[in-house]
Every structure is written in structure tokens, then in C-alpha cells.
């Protein structure tokens, strides 16, 4: 798990709505039973002109291939960023590339939850704030995010944002959600024992061997 408190870095703008996890990491790029080795395939179909054939020739029109794109750590996008497939590879790829903050009008629900679990800060801003931020970033400003204060800054802009407390705490402390929950194991076990009496019909879990 990784902590997130504050971050300052170069930002890039993808001024589209509905950027899906398919676009963030095409399924063809998810080659291993592992969370690593995905950064190279990030946005592959947009980033490389010959991605479909497994090539790696940069498309000069794509923002990550332009001035300083390689060193960006903040991504500013339109609405519904990370919609579609639940693949967590999308967050792993973004993170491995170097992104720590994603600011957008809204996010795909599963993607949003995946961010916090992986030390990436998702920031929801209003449409007006997003356009102002895009303008400022395109003019060359770095972006600063402060999770404790829940503020996002760039140039003259200073926006406040909120994150659900559970996710905020996980990010701030770099906690493993599993360990946090397992601290309640006795409570869970007790609940299951009671539930087994209430809903005995559910606890049939053997598949007959004839298949």
C-alpha cells in the first residue's frame, strides 16, 4: 500500500469525457498475472501509432508524447474518467507511469475505489473548475494536491475537494484495507455464525461431483 499526503507535479490535460479503462489500458496490454509491467501499455492505442501490432512508435499527437508528457504526474480529464471495465490494471498502469493525482468532473465508480486502494488520489471538481484547471495547466502551471487540507492548487487557482473519509484515511495512512478489516475478525466470525442459523439454505456450497 502506499501513502498519499501531498503531491506536486507536472500535469497533462485530456479534455475528453468518458475515457474508459479500455482506453487507459487495452486488454491486449495486460499480459501477466501481475500488477507490474503495465506502465508501458498505458493509453497504448492513443500513445503508439502501431499499438495494435504490439509496436511502440510514439504518436506525436498524443499528450504524453509531447513536451514533458513523460514526466507528468497529474492528469486532468473530463467527466466519467475510468468508466467501463473494472480492470484495476488501469490504475496500476497510471501509477506505474508516474501519475499520483487524477482530477476530473466525475469518475467511474469502480475506478474511483481502485485509486484509493493504490495510492492514487482521485479529485472530483466541478465542470467550471475542471476547465479553469485545464487552462492553467496548458499555460504551464504545475499542480499541487494536499489531501490533509483537501485542496488542489495550480497557478492562481485554489480549489477544495472532498474524499469519502474511508478512502481519505486509507490514502493518508497508506493502510491495507484488508488489515483494517481483519482487526474485526471476531465480529465477522460471530456474524457468520448467526447468519448460518438465519439463512441455513445459503450455506450449500458443494458442487455435486457428477458436475
Amino acid at each position, binding site marked *: 500500500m502506499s501513502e498519499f499526503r501531498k503531491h506536486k507535479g507536472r500535469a497533462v490535460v485530456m479534455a*475528453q469525457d*468518458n475515457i*474508459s479503462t*479500455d*482506453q487507459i489500458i*487495452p*486488454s*491486449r496490454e*495486460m*499480459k*501477466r*498475472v*501481475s*500488477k507490474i509491467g503495465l506502465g508501458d501499455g498505458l493509453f497504448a*492505442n492513443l500513445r503508439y501509432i502501431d*499499438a*495494435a501490432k504490439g509496436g511502440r512508435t510514439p504518436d506525436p499527437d498524443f499528450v504524453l508524447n509531447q513536451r514533458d508528457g513523460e514526466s507528468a504526474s497529474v492528469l486532468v480529464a473530463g*467527466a*466519467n474518467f475510468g*468508466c*467501463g*471495465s*473494472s*480492470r*484495476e*490494471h488501469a*490504475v496500476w498502469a497510471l501509477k506505474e507511469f508516474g501519475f499520483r493525482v487524477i482530477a476530473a468532473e*466525475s469518475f*467511474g*465508480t*469502480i*475506478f474511483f*475505489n*481502485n485509486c484509493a*486502494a*493504490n495510492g492514487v488520489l482521485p479529485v472530483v471538481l466541478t465542470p467550471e473548475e475542471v476547465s479553469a484547471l485545464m487552462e492553467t495547466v496548458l499555460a504551464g502551471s504545475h499542480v499541487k494536491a494536499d489531501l490533509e487540507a483537501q485542496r488542489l492548487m495550480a497557478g492562481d487557482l485554489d480549489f477544495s475537494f472532498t474524499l*469519502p*473519509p*474511508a478512502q481519505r484515511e486509507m490514502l493518508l495512512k497508506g493502510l491495507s*484495507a*484488508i488489515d483494517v*478489516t*481483519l482487526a*474485526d*475478525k471476531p*465480529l*465477522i466470525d460471530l*456474524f*457468520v455464525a448467526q*447468519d448460518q442459523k438465519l*439463512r*441455513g*439454505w*445459503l450455506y*450449500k*456450497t*458443494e*458442487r*455435486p461431483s457428477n*458436475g
Partner: protein
Amino acid sequence: MTSGPASLFDKILAAHTIKRFEDQGTLVLIDRILLHERTGSVALASLEEDGRALAAPETVLATIDHIADNRPGRPALSRMPGGEVFVEAMRQQSQRAGITLYDVHDRDQGIVHVIAPEQGFALPGVTIVCPDSHTCSLGALGALAWGIGTSEAEHALATRTLRIPAYKQMRIVLTGTLPEWSTAKDVILALISRHSARHAVGHVIEFAGPAVDDMPIEARLTLCNMAVEFGAFTAMIAPDEKTFDYVEGRTFSPEPAQIAEARMWWKTLRTDAGYTFDQEIRFDVTNLAPMVSWGTSPEHAVPVDGTVPEDIPDDSRALDYMALRPGQPLAGLKVDTAFIGSCTNSRLSDLRRAAGILRGRRVAPGVKAICVPGSNAVKRAAEEEGLDRIFTAAGFEWQEPGCAMCFYAGGASFGERDRVISSTNRNFEGRQGPGARTHIASPETVAWSAVQGRISDVRNWAKTPVRPPDERVS
């Protein structure tokens, strides 16, 4: 819980609430977990790396569907380059962890969301999760089912629980009667296109109303399948007699001695009168036309006799990708391929309806057409009825169950710039192959468009004379 009126969602949530947090979030018991080789293998590998055990392996069911080969006579390993890594990992991990696996050659293998209801793994009132976004399909049985990421899958596997935030609730009331040629697929496409692909973000949807009551279970599964395309956390439908009948006697359904007890609880799973939703949509489906998508988001959909909206900028990326212009009619667009399959529309009733269109007809010359049943059980049943012969006589390829060309995993896919009429759920850029131009529609519309060689209005089917019947069709 408060004592006021409660919704279907509230009731299932309450029955699973282990703990509530200050932020209104809830720690819920997860009754059942589904895995597939593509994401499940990654979650299991990560747990193994961290040295964590599964809390209850007997509540987990795994399948190999995403990159399973679809060609007849397929090998047990994926023919997709690199695919065998996931398949092999899933096999070994399932064995080590003690998880039931529906392997490639299992008589009941199939797409995870197709086999979960078939096997009685998804039931009314249960919480069920899968690291796959279309898990919301299973809400059609009155389950609380949702798609999660890999980290959450690890959490569910290791703790048998998940923490969920407080969601808003939306009821979508479908009134009226669906016209003969319109389906659950058309309903959900119409809803998404009217309200946008993010309209339901942060919400649990409950589908209700007379048109939902009228729907058979398989149509309800189609309806709920695309709730994620609406942005929803998940969707659900209160279980009724149809549901109870459907779930009885399946592999993981309650034992006959316990079914009465289960039913007693299931009957209470409906929203109380007087409950106020955060949002309510009413939609009269009486005049709904078959829908087809024109762009690269499911919200880009119009009635099949409609046109690409005029107010789309000419240089829109979606139009550019799809090679279309504002104002252009959808019907009449030449298609290169037709695909019937996916967790949205690959169940027996889908295949029956498509076969009804194809009977005695042939796919237009030059069109490649593929049908992939959602599971081996569907395939068997279809073959018993002779549907496979109708499909093949019409010129469709009849393939082996799995996700197949629903998503492009580097194996089989459609050609670059191919225009595809598809019964799937996502028309995203590159979803069915690099550059592939997907138009999503009902299986009926896919079948009829395949016959015509162009996107076509299935309402004209009956008006079009059958070509001389093919000898091979009985």
C-alpha cells in the same frame, strides 16, 4: 436500521451489515464470490504473494471464459498469445485454494455472469461480487451483486466482507407493454441515451413496474447487465414468483428441504410502500423502437430508423472513429460482421429469438457472422432444439462458449475498420479489435442486419419474403 419504509436494497444491506462506520459506510458480509481467469488470477496471485489465505474458499466459484478459445474443437489452453498464463494460473490457484472451477472443458463452463444464475450461485437476497463490471447483471434475481476491482476482490476473498459507501437509490419504473420487436436491450439503451452514460453514478438502481414484471428472467438479466453502462453501482429487481421458479433446483440453489424457508424471506424482499427514492425515472416502453448505437459510448444510441444526432460536431472523435456524419441514417449502413454473444445477450431465449429471424434465410454475401452461446448449458439446450442448425444453415459460425469477441484480448477480433453489428454491451473504441466499429443492438437486430448486410429495422422482418428455403434446414 430505522423503522420507516425500506427499499429492496436497504433490506438486503441490513441483512448483511456487520458494522456501520461514521461516514455511513457499511462493512457487509459477502455471501458468494465469482472469479474469472482474467482478473481473478491476478487477485489470487497477489493474495498468495502477501501470504494471505482465503476466508471461505467454499463460497468462491471460478470460470475460464474471457480468453478461452472459441473455435470449435478448442484446446484446453487459450490460443490467444500470452493467454495461457492466465488460464494456467487460474487452474493451479483454484486447486491450491480449494475453489470450484468451471474449466474450459467442463460441461457447464461459460461466461461468468451467464453461469452464475444457471448454476444457482446467484440467488435472491445474497451478496455476490466479482472482479468484473457486469456482475450487476445478477441483480435481476434480486441479489445484491456488483463488480469490484482486484484489490477489493482480494479483500473479499481474504475477509469475506467488503466495505461499501452509502449509495443513493434510484427507481426506474417501466410502464406500458414492450412492442413485439423491442427488448430489454432496447430499453436499457434508450434509458442510457436519454439520460447519459453517467446519469446513475453513485446510485443503486431498482427496476420496477409492469413492464419489468412482464419480463422473463433472461430479459431482466439483460436489463441489469447494462446498469454499469449507465454508471450505476448496481441494479436490482425484486424477486417474484418467476424468480423463485427460476432459481429452484439448480446446482447451488437451496436444498428442497430448505426452499420454503428461503422463499419466506425472499418474499419480503421488495420496496415498502411509501419509500422515497433519491430519484425516480418513469419510462413508458409502449412505443419503444429497436435501438442501435452510432458512436463509441452506449449513450450514443438512437432508434434504428433514426439518424446520428445533428448536434454532434462534425469533427467529433466518435464520428471520426465510426466514419459517420451528423444526420446520417443508421439503417442501411453496410456491416462487415455480425456477432451474437456476450453476457448481455447469449442466453437461450436470445438465441431462440435470433434463430426465429434466421430460419430459412441466409446471411448476406460478404458478411462474417458469429454466434457464441453464453455457456455450455445454453449451447447444449440450443442444439437439442436444433438452433445450431438454423444458425449454421444461415451462414453463422457456431462457436464455443466464452466472452469471445465481446472484448478484444489480442486473440480473435474483428478487422480494423470493420463495421460490426453486435449484441454486446460496449461500443468503446477498440473494444472488439483495434479500429473495429461496433454498433450495439438486440440479437434480433443483429440477426436481421446480418441477413440484410446492412443495419436494418427488424420490424420489417415479417414484410420481407423468405428466400427459397435452404435444404439443410429441417
